[in-house]
């Protein structure tokens, strides 16, 4: 078992150097100190915990909806309340859970996998988290003051416009988008910079773990997709707050333009969520099938192709608006192309599992669950790509079934797999495998019980987003089954939390590399120290922990009395220069508050944009104030 050994070299004054490292990476104390953390483990954990709370919130909203729909003509929720809840559910899951969760995992894992000490811009990273948190609080402030958005997570005008949705509900929604946009763009920037410039020496692009590849692609997608939704939500928000006419059909504005811009973001958004999940799958399959990935190059190219094609098929959300036939043919073809690139990846995983020695851990259970569910979702996606079939199933429960199959199957199951896989790294303790397997089966059965019948229901004519339905339509029995399934999923969630709590307290001690995995994050202590590695590792192979111990190398000569790391070249990761991370700072938090004042206030009075800008400018002066050369500024 060579692989469980880490990269700790034996050199003379090691203890002293580690002690120095410890001091320079120590977190500041006290409440203000807590608000000033900039290490990627702390920020990543905060993202993960906040996003997980959002998952639970969104899940509770889903249960409320399922309770209302359990029987026909149910009076559990009023239509107003139901509309608020389904909108908040969609918004929470897409913007406040899925994307931030993937980002949080990336912030935690990417620097470890790249073999460096932090993300490239630690303060920007902290700022991004605070913006995300304030976005969460902003939306849920609305929810608890009866101003939850009620026009769907897509908010099509004119329904979402000033006349048909009076009050501030939609404004809260549109401005929450701005918060999460800022946060997502911060994360994307620093992830790209980290991956391009801070990989361990020797980790050339073709040696990068597939998970890191997936994050690189996802981050570029974020940078190209998010501006579109900023435009869409700005159209809406300025129409509502300062009486512009961007999307008002009566004055020559165009509600269809809004749909185009929204879906130009909205479709890539799905891939932004699920491409990192494909990265989880690759990492888990490799570690638990105990062999190198089959078809590394094909996988990378397929993911890159996925990223490109994702931007060319948004119109399949709009087939019912009426398109010229040539446009229909184009978007059918492009939508089906995504099945090729996804198919290649599935074949490669199957090949890896088939020729490997799969260890049926809980993590791998979730990967098998992913493969079953995601294949169904992919196949129904092919159905939706066909224009004539889409005319029938669009906006019915068939679509609800489809996207829960791809998003829960494609993202949530790999995510749970990832929790079971990386929990030992993050906490230092193993999760309980017995409860884990029970957890998997409860979720798997509950999921299929909830969402499979929805396919049939959609073909039987049940539209989406209805708060109730007449008894004589015959949708009652299926809806009842689905509600039972939803509660089973809820039990699965409780099991997971129980497992986390008890394992965190009394789980088996994990050690550095409990899975005998291949990538660099397993080369250090669990949980890692703030500086990640005592000596930065050198990657001599695509699977650095599976090479023979005698071939391993590490970096020495970095200064330990400040937060220093190595910058390497983009393609081949050759050492280039040393880089000093900025120290902990309260300014990202203060800047986030200033920006929040501007964003939140502008919903009520446009002048807040001005006040917010002035305050943010002042905060940035503090942020960038030079503090002598012991600290470099980011």
């Amino acid at each position, binding site marked *: 078992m060579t692989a469980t050994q880490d990269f700790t070299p034996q050199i003379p004054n090691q203890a002293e150097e580690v002690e120095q490292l410890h001091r320079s990476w120590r977190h500041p104390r006290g409440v203000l100190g807590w608000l000033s953390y900039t290490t990627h483990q702390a920020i990543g954990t905060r993202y993960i915990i906040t996003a997980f709370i959002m998952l639970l919130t969104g899940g509770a909203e889903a249960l409320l909806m399922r309770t209302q729909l359990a029987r026909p003509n149910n009076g559990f929720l009023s239509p107003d309340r139901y509309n608020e809840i389904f909108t908040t559910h969609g918004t929470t899951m897409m913007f406040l859970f899925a994307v931030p969760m993937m980002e949080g995992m990336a912030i935690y894992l990417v620097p470890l996998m790249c073999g460096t000490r932090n993300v490239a811009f630690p303060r920007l990273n902290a700022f991004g988290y605070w913006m995300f948190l304030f976005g969460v609080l902003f939306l849920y402030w609305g929810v608890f003051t009866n101003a939850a958005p009620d026009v769907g997570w897509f908010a099509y005008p004119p329904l979402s416009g000033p006349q048909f949705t009076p009050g501030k509900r939609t404004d809260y929604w549109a401005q929450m988008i701005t918060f999460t946009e800022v946060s997502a763009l911060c994360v994307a920037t620093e992830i790209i910079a980290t991956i391009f410039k801070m990989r361990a020496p020797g980790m050339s692009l073709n040696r990068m773990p597939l998970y890191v590849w997936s994050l690189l692609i996802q981050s570029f997608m974020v940078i190209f997709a998010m501006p579109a939704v900023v435009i869409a939500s700005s159209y809406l928000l300025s129409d509502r707050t300062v009486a512009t006419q961007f999307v008002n059909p009566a004055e020559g504005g165009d509600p269809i333009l809004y749909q185009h811009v929204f879906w130009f973001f909205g479709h890539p958004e799905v891939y932004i969520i699920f491409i990192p999940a494909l990265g989880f799958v690759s990492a888990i399959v490799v570690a638990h099938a105990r062999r190198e990935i*089959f078809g590394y190059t094909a996988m990378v190219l397929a993911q890159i192709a996925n990223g490109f094609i994702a931007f060319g098929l948004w119109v399949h959300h709009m087939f019912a608006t009426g398109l010229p036939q040539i446009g229909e043919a184009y978007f059918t073809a492009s939508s089906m192309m995504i099945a090729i690139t996804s198919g290649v990846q599935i074949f490669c995983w199957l*090949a890896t599992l088939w020729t490997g020695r799969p260890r049926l851990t809980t993590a791998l259970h979730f990967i098998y669950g992913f493969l079953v569910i995601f294949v169904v979702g992919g196949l129904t996606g092919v159905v939706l790509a066909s224009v004539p*079939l889409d005319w*029938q199933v669009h906006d019915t429960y068939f679509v609800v079934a489809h996207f829960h199959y791809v998003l829960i199957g494609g993202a949530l199951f790999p995510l749970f797999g990832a929790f079971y896989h990386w929990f030992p790294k993050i906490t230092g303790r193993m999760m309980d495998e017995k409860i884990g397997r029970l957890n998997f089966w409860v979720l798997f059965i509950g999921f299929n019980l909830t969402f499979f019948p929805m396919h049939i229901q959609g073909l039987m004519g049940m539209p989406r987003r209805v708060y109730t339905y007449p008894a004589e339509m015959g949708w009652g029995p299926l809806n009842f089954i689905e509600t039972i399934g939803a509660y089973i999923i809820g039990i699965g969630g409780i099991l997971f939390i129980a497992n986390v709590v008890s394992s965190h307290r009394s789980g088996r001690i994990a050690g550095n590399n409990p899975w005998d995995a291949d990538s660099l994050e397993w080369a250090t202590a669990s949980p890692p120290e703030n500086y990640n590695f005592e000596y930065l590792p050198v990657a001599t192979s695509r699977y650095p922990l599976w090479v023979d111990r005698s071939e391993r190398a590490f970096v020495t000569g970095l200064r330990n009395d400040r937060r220093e790391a190595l910058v390497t070249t983009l393609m081949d990761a050759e050492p280039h220069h040393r880089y000093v991370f900025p120290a902990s700072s309260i300014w990202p938090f203060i800047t986030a508050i200033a920006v929040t004042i501007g964003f939140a206030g502008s919903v009520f009075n446009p002048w807040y944009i001005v006040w917010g800008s002035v305050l943010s400018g002042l905060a940035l002066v503090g942020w960038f104030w030079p503090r002598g050369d012991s600290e470099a500024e980011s």
Partner: protein
Amino acid sequence: MKRAAVPAFALSVLYGCAWHQQSALNPGGPQAAKIDTLWWSFFWLLGVIFIIVMTVLLLTLTGRRANMEREALEVTHKASPQTESQTRRIVTGATIITILILFVLIVASVGTGKAIADLGFKKNPLTIQVTGNQWWWEIQYINGDASQTLVTANEMHIPVGRPVQILGQSQDVIHSFWVPNLHGKRDLIPSRTTNEWIEADQPGAYRGQCAEFCGLQHAHMALWVIAEPEDRFDAWMRAQLQPAASPSTQETIRGQQVFLNNACVFCHQIRGTTAGGQNAPDLTHFGSRRGIAANTVPNTKGNLAGWIVDPQSMKPGNHMATIAVNSTDLQPLVDYLESLK
């Protein structure tokens, strides 16, 4: 999927349901029939693919093909070159097959789309303008002769075997016209006119429902399409073009007065009376329709009385005014409206 679908459908039938009246898989016209055929060809093809992939998935758990060697992966983490090249051939083959299948599906899908488009351009079409409102449907039969232009609501009659052009418009927000037994959806978008051709090839009542989220009562925005033979359709049309029947009994005369003296007239029209409101469904032949409140409930005297007295409990948020009607006025009003056959 099919195997699960059959018992589910059976279950629904046991409950005595109307699922077949709003089902994409029970076509009542050529457009829906073509989509139905396309669906089943997709279903079987994709079903086979699903079974194959799941079989391979199970095989990864149970073991390998007989002629593949088992390497001691714990040390090398690498499969032998022989295994790799064998696997590569299989994966490449599977990818090529995937591409071919998708190509076939694209051709089938685009071909079906074209065939459906070609169905529209036949001679002697009927043109109906459907206008979406929060939360009801205005149905207008377009005719060059203004006296033959009929406006009604929430119930559309069409002749069997004659193509019908639906011109979709909206008065407020985006709605979507969808009668699954006849055709797929077409959005009704303010300031635009969308276009769809439907046709029924067998008589029957087909239910449709708004499919684009349109606010509080999106759930209760249904319409019936009644397909009937040409002669019965013509008779229906003649009857509907007549102004409302004059009330004949004392009760209905009084009911008419109640109607005309209340806020009803600001929104509803009854041709042949002074009631000329344009904001809500035309009630000229209200008694002949199947449902009340965009088919939220069947059209019975009891439901109608309940609807007039407290519309917000039946369909919370709808735009019908809640008017305090005297108990002595209610029965005549209901009788009058139901007499408008």
